[in-house]
């Protein structure tokens, strides 16, 4: 008689039958038990983890970070940097200061002194302190206000060219 077992003898072998039935068993089992991660495992992970502290925002030290040694070590800029440090750490938290600009006045001062040197830097700072007021936002286009509602100002802009 003509049967598939005669044409393909592999169908008749015991090994094949065992393989197929094992495969079928695994397949049915996988349909039934597809569970996710268990809550007890989660709890063990949580108990094992340590609380990571949020990073403290970077506060520049009282010395100007500059390659220019004259700017870095001369007594006037040291005194000025010290004053700035004193203001940022002692006075500013006292008066709950709120600058309407994106780079706050003291950071603007540091950045502009580093960019342009002491004389122009101090002049720009004093000019800025005179403008630092909520009235300044009156006729600024919303394009130049960031998502926190602060006016964007970059010390790099303060050149004639």
């Amino acid at each position, binding site marked *: 008689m003509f049967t598939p*077992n005669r044409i393909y003898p592999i169908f008749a072998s015991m090994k094949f039958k065992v393989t*197929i039935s094992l495969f079928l068993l695994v397949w049915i089992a996988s349909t039934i038990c597809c569970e996710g*991660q*268990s809550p007890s495992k989660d*709890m063990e992970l949580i108990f094992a983890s340590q609380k990571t502290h949020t990073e403290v925002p970077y506060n520049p030290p009282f010395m100007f970070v500059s390659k220019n040694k004259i700017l870095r070590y001369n007594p006037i800029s040291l005194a000025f940097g010290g004053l700035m440090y004193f203001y940022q750490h002692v006075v500013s*938290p006292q008066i*709950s200061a709120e600058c309407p600009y994106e780079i706050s006045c003291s950071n603007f001062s540091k950045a502009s002194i580093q960019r342009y040197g002491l004389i122009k830097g101090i002049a720009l700072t004093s000019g800025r302190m005179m403008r630092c007021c909520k009235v300044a936002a009156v006729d600024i286009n919303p394009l130049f206000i960031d998502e926190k509602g602060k006016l964007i100002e970059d010390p790099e802009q303060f050149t004639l060219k």
Partner: protein
Amino acid sequence: MSWWVCGFLLIISLDKSSASSFREADSLFSAGLYHDAQIAYEFIAFENQDNELIIANALLKKANCLKAENHSDKVFQTLSRCKIDKLDDSLKANIYFEQSLSAFNAGNFNIARKTIEPLLSLNTNREMDLASVFLCSLILDELGEWAISKNNLISYLNRDTTISQSLKDSLKNNISLIYNPDLYPRLKKIKKARLLSMILPGSGQLYSGKPWKGVVAFGLVALSGAYVYYDIVSELYLAAAVGFYLGETFYVGNVNQVNAIIIKRNQHKIDHFNVVNKSELSQFYKKISHL
């Protein structure tokens, strides 16, 4: 034999039910292809948009993928797409648990508390019940509500039927050792500190444990007061007005500063206490879960 083989292959090829889609996605997940698995689960949710049960299952599994990829911050938003009210208790519990776990990991303890509290009243299996009670205690510890946390643990012990009465008593003893009211950190009160600072500038800072900030605050207000007095004596009224404005700024600033100091100090104390508490609670959890 041949009929059997062919029938089996037919079943495989024609099987298009959600169970088979789940199986395919699960195999992607176990192969470590988390992103592909996520999309496969999303596809299941998409294909069964009118079946809340399948959607919830698929999204829960997607949340597992996200956790495996260390994106546990996205879990809360993903699971909030499930419509929870039509589901049965165990699925609900799973969703609440994953959500509050995600919020807890992200540090949003108030949201985590709101999500986990309805879970405590649901009927679930022992494992889930235990895990949710302990997660709730961890969240409440972070918020500084140790008394509620203790009560939750004790009421869990009361309703657990697998533990004998004598063992329960010793475990309760254990809890009251962990949550000892004498060891609770003494948190400072914001209202009191603000009032103190209003009466005498700087005293609020002294009360909250930062004496030098108090000295600076008092010094600034006193200096501007002295300056105003000197100006009035020497008939410099404009300068006096400016001095008064400065003094007022310092005074208001000093009252506002107390808020920030106290919140920071209290958080520090709570963290310090919880580090010890967490390790003890972890041992307690191991003990109770192996019973």
